[in-house]
């Protein structure tokens, strides 16, 4: 116990560095995937058949394969098969590769949530809009979207909370996120070797952060509680 207290400041500062990387990946993925998901959703709902087929093919491949494999392919494919490593050797390249894999993967899941939300609005409303002489865009923007936003918040919350924890997968391409940082004390780091508790302690970071995310999303849901 005494020893743990001594190690505590060193471990926490190392875990903070790792968690910063986790947070960076989380926010970059969120910012990228939320709009990209909408684009993919429109693609898969397109009336232009080849486009919708292509988008659904992509969504099928991305959702149908493990994110871990996608990370490995994105990071190692250019260097090994194409003979030119586009990511560079350092931490920045690993982060960029992880971010792209995560954005794409999550955008595909988000797109299906959006699609579900959009299609849950009764067709009668679109027909009514058309009868009133509104354009398709006006109907989407003024009638459908308002209802979609509030309906997709609960399923989106699910995905977002999963995302916080999924960032740990990036360690497969050696992105030094918080679990990596915690594990490093087992082998020896910052003068501490064979310490087990930092790895378990990382759970506290996830738990607290997900608590904040849950509260934030809960508030958002309340604010969107119109049309009642």
């Amino acid at each position, binding site marked *: 116990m005494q020893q743990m207290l001594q190690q505590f400041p060193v471990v926490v500062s190392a875990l903070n560095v790792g968690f910063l990387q986790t947070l960076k990946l989380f926010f970059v993925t969120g910012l990228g995937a939320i709009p990209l998901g909408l684009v993919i959703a429109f693609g898969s709902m397109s009336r232009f058949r080849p486009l919708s087929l292509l988008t659904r093919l992509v969504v099928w491949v991305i959702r149908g394969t493990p994110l871990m494999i996608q990370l490995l392919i994105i990071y190692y494919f250019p260097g090994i098969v194409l003979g030119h490593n586009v990511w*560079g*050797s*350092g931490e920045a390249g690993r982060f960029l590769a992880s971010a792209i894999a995560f954005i794409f993967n999550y955008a595909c899941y988000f797109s299906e949530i959006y699609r579900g939300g959009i299609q849950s609005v009764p067709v009668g409303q679109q027909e009514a809009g058309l009868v009133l002489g509104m354009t398709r865009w006006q109907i989407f923007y003024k009638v459908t979207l308002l209802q979609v936003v509030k309906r997709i918040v609960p399923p989106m919350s699910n995905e977002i909370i999963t995302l916080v924890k999924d960032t740990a997968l990036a360690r497969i391409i050696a992105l030094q996120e918080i679990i990596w940082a915690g594990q490093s004390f*087992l082998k*020896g780091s910052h003068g501490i070797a064979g310490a087990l508790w930092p790895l378990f302690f990382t759970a506290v970071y996830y738990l607290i952060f997900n608590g904040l995310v849950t509260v934030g999303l809960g508030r958002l849901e309340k604010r969107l509680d119109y049309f009642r």
Partner: protein
Amino acid sequence: MKKILALTLAALMLLSMTACGAAKKDDVLEPAGEEATEAPAEEEATEAPAEEEAAEETPAAEEEDAEEEPAEDSDLAYVQDKGTLVVGITEFEPMDYKDEDGNWIGFDADMAAAFAESLGVEAEFVEIDWDNKELELKNQSIDVVWNGMTLTDEVTTAMECSNAYCNNAQTVILPADQADKYKTAEDMADLVFAVEVGSAGKEQVEALGYEYTEVQTQADALLQVKAGSADAAVIDLLMAAAMVGEGTSYADLTNTVNLNSEEYGVGFRKGSDLAAALNDFFAESYADGTMEQIAETYGVQASLIEQK
């Protein structure tokens, strides 16, 4: 009863929804009615190209390797050209680890920095996943694996390796209160071992014919013993010195019998001329005493191998 019925219905509904989701949507936006029949055909069509892709990947990768070797005549020139020697490591006291200020130190880290300096380039340390070390080399995201790597057959076939520079052994880790009962490897026949996947320790236990479980890292193997899910672990002796005993989370574990003796080496891309350059550097720094000096700093001088 009602509840079960409701649940089954709900599950069926979910299934049917996924099955005809595509068709439904088209009904809404399009007047055409054949979508329902088209949907299964689509899926078949999409499956085929993706499977081909996956099948193609491996042979493509191998071909590329074969082509690359002549082009990679001089890895040395490549490294000098870009000005950095990227060293792939994992944290592994006393070979490569971070000091309190976050700088990379250790016997391997210091030697790597000195070697890079002798080439006129800078050493850049990058942490890698040990399982992917060959991938990282081929991917050119690192130039060398320099991290207390045991020269096994697997390693020497996959990489261009330097001469051995350090002695090591695979040692058995037991709970301290059990250590008296097991004095030799023969005594341990009834124990269940935890070993790192693909490690030299695994080969040893396999050769003895004892029961074992494979885990991700050597640290995980210790965790198994501590948690009681394995009776004993086999890990590197140099690592055991840092990881078990007083002052660690494994104070109640101890290292006992050494199963073999083995050697550490440094790995480069297959066919790289950097290996020869490093052998020359090792010989030089052994002759002028700097290698031993660095070894003493980290307490590994007893394991050092003479370089000629």
